[in-house]
């Protein structure tokens, strides 16, 4: 390990500037999907290099190839100017490459220390290695301000702390190059800032950082250079100082982004949904939603903003009748529909509540089902779909075809397996199923996650049309852009509580960001005032 460090420093001093990483012509296919098309990339030593692109652009695949998780079908990898073959994570680690995965690769039942030494135990018996690791960990913690208790059980740590364990793991293995895959997806803006300070320290110590993200703010704030990927191709390299968010976003999607949806003034009418003092606990008894109270009226879109994992998923699931409510009350058109007491998802559907859940694959559909089977999920007991005690598959196929043509789902084939549709078409099918029932209230979570740009526009328009038809819409999204362009009122959730409400007209990213971090609305506004 120390040898590598010396080599690195040596290279730096002589000034023979070899890039830390150079990829040439990397190519990778997964069956019919061409995930990486002849990618070239050069990452300079001692810099923070951003890689941006939409979901599915091929960023994670590229980094997984660099980390030896997959083998490229073609192309070469050069680390420190030397041609390398990376057959597995162990090769990458030996080359001084460390990776912090989007989903943490930690053993939750182990302590921090055990997680850190896994794979580099330093001997067949743990004792000696553990003592050495404890010392080394102390040094690393001091040097990089990574405070974590080495004897804590990882599963009991906060998300931010778990991420620091991942960074410690990489550093302990002597990583000179650190790859972070969407590291802020689970962090508050403030936690993210903490992370960026750590990355800055790493850079000062001569480490190279590769930051994969789809968030422009982070690219602009944290990186020296940025590379843009689109549909498996590397489309541009820029110095961050010489580019703009507008240029990057255009490169990402290949055309001007329509950030604002054309929509008229909302005309809120009667209260449709009234949530009073709602509390939701997990099965383990952790309170996820704390005393939430709000209303949604007919003819308006209420958006719920927040960093993912702050209770909005649980809130949406509780309102959809999936999660039991611990305390509080939910009124729909003045009637008590608090989930748990005889009210479940089926009952809510009967009453006119439609629900598009956040996680399509996990919840909204069964990927092994055909489109027509997917199109009746939740409505399988609809009399229109029955013939005596049997299901009327002819009627169901007709209904599915109607949904598919109405929501432009391609290909329009009710017998095709749901898994064989693209993400956007799957989502449109789910939306069609829920929205064409003409519900009075639409609960919708992350409506455009993993959906291509064309479909995003279509989906946004349908949601606004629904509002204009006098329906109530509750929208949960972690994409601030989406919330700001769709919602008429915005509620911000942090740590299970609704921190406050902002009218869409008064909202901007900074105020919402502060509120998402738990700063009360008044303070958030005045804090912003100071900055201006």
């Amino acid at each position, binding site marked *: 390990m120390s040898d590598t460090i010396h080599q690195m420093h040596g290279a730096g001093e002589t000034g023979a500037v070899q890039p830390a990483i150079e990829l040439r012509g990397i190519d990778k296919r*997964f069956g019919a999907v061409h995930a990486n098309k002849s990618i070239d990339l050069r990452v300079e030593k001692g810099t923070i290099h951003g890689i941006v692109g939409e979901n599915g652009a091929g960023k*994670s*695949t590229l980094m997984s190839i660099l*980390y030896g*998780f*997959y083998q490229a079908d073609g192309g070469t990898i050069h680390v420190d100017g030397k041609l390398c073959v990376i057959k*597995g*994570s*162990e*090769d*990458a*680690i*030996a080359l001084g490459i460390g*990776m912090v*995965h989007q*989903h943490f*690769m*930690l*053993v*939750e*039942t*182990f302590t921090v220390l*055990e*997680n850190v*030494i*896994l*794979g*580099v*135990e330093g*001997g*067949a*018996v*743990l*004792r000696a*290695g553990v003592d050495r690791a404890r010392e080394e960990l102390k040094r690393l913690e001091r040097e990089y301000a990574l405070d974590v208790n080495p004897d804590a059980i990882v599963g009991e740590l906060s998300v931010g702390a778990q991420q620091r364990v991942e960074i410690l*793991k990489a550093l302990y293995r002597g990583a000179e190059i650190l790859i972070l895959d969407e590291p802020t997806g689970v962090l508050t803006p403030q936690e993210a800032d903490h992370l960026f300070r750590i990355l800055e320290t790493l850079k000062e110590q001569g480490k190279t950082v590769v930051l994969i993200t789809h968030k422009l703010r982070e690219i602009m704030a944290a990186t020296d250079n940025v590379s843009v990927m689109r549909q498996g191709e590397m489309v541009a390299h820029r110095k961050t100082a010489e580019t703009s968010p507008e240029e990057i976003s255009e490169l990402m999607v290949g055309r001007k982004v329509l950030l604002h949806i054309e929509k008229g003034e909302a005309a809120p009418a009667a209260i449709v949904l009234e949530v009073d003092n709602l509390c939701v606990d997990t099965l383990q008894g952790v309170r996820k939603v704390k005393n939430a109270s709000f209303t949604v009226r007919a003819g308006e879109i209420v958006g719920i903003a927040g960093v993912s994992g702050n209770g909005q998923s649980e809130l949406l699931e509780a309102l959809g009748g999936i999660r039991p409510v611990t305390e509080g009350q939910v009124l729909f058109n003045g009637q008590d529909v608090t989930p748990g007491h005889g009210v479940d998802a089926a009952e809510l559907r009967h009453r006119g509540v439609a629900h598009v859940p956040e996680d399509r694959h996990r919840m909204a559909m069964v990927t092994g089902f055909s489109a027509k089977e997917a199109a009746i999920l939740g409505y399988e007991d609809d009399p229109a779909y029955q013939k005596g005690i049997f299901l009327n598959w002819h009627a169901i196929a007709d209904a599915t075809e109607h949904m598919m043509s109405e929501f432009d789902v391609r290909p329009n084939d009710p017998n095709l397996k749901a898994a064989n549709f693209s993400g956007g078409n799957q989502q449109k099918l789910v939306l069609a199923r829920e929205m064409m029932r003409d519900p009075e209230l639409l609960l919708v979570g992350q409506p455009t996650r993993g959906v291509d740009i064309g479909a995003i526009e279509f989906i946004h328009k349908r949601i606004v049309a629904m509002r204009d038809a006098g329906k109530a819409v509750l929208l949960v999204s972690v994409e601030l852009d989406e919330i700001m362009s769709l919602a008429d009122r915005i509620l911000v959730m942090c740590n299970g509580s609704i921190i406050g409400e902002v009218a869409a007209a008064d909202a901007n990213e900074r105020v919402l960001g502060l509120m998402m971090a738990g700063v009360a609305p008044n303070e958030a506004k005045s804090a912003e005032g100071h900055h201006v």
Partner: protein
Amino acid sequence: MDNFELVILLLDATLRTSTPLILAALAGMFSERSGTINLALEGMMLGGAFSAATVAYYAGNPWIGLLAAIATTVSLSLLHGFACITHKGNQVVSGMAINILMSGLTALVGIALFAQGGKTPSLDHGSRFQPITLPGADAVADVPILGSLYSELLSGHNILVYIAFLAVPAAWWVMYRTRFGLRLRAVGENPGAVDTAGIGVIAMRYRAVMCSGVLVGMSGAYLSTAQGASFLQDMTAGKGYIALAAMVFGKWRPFPALFACLLFGFLDAAATRMQGVVLPGIGEVPVQLVQALPYVLTVILLAGFIGRAIPPKSLGRPYVKER
């Protein structure tokens, strides 16, 4: 015979009946802590018992029989691994397949070799594991209580009994104090963490099921060359499943599993002695009830009425790299 003598005899029988359970339960633990369900303990035990008896008969040496048993069960473990680890097949199905296969194969080959209705020839004195008298056992035999405890309960078992009881702390040490154990436990909880740490998940899981094979092989050999003197068709009679239950009952940990095995072994030993015995105030306890008790207790434990048994997180899930 006084009560003390009776207790000693009962405990002595408990040690003997729980020995194969302990070895098999530890075998199950090694496999399952690494993420591979091992329902095949029953069939592997049977295969081990058959190989041990057959080879010991031809070789005239129980140790060679033991080696044959271990070779058989390790091969079966590799087969299980080939289906479940390499080809990501269903672990429950693979386990059941091996159980059924071995139940048929041992009988079939037994009949083909010896034509004794599936039984192997009786082993003579030298081809079996013999009782070992611990040093000084005879000398202290007359000392009241402690002496007879030592000479009658602790001394006089065959080597496999001692190996089984020593295997428990050994397994604990390997599991919690060595690199191998750390990796094995990690691969059963989150194989992704192991893979990204540069350790091969597949190889790790194979090594774990092979450990499982070694232990269950000894358990099989014990049945046919130590406790018994030949192989009998389906002689395991569900012991593999009881061991599995004991492992679950012991929450996938060595020492609790040992206690579960001793408890189940005790119930087994007691059942044979309770036949027709009328207990004061209760009457005659049906022997079937005592026999069913291990299963009933395990179900009650699984139902969460006496503590919760939390299995390793990725138990039963083949490792697939996520995209």
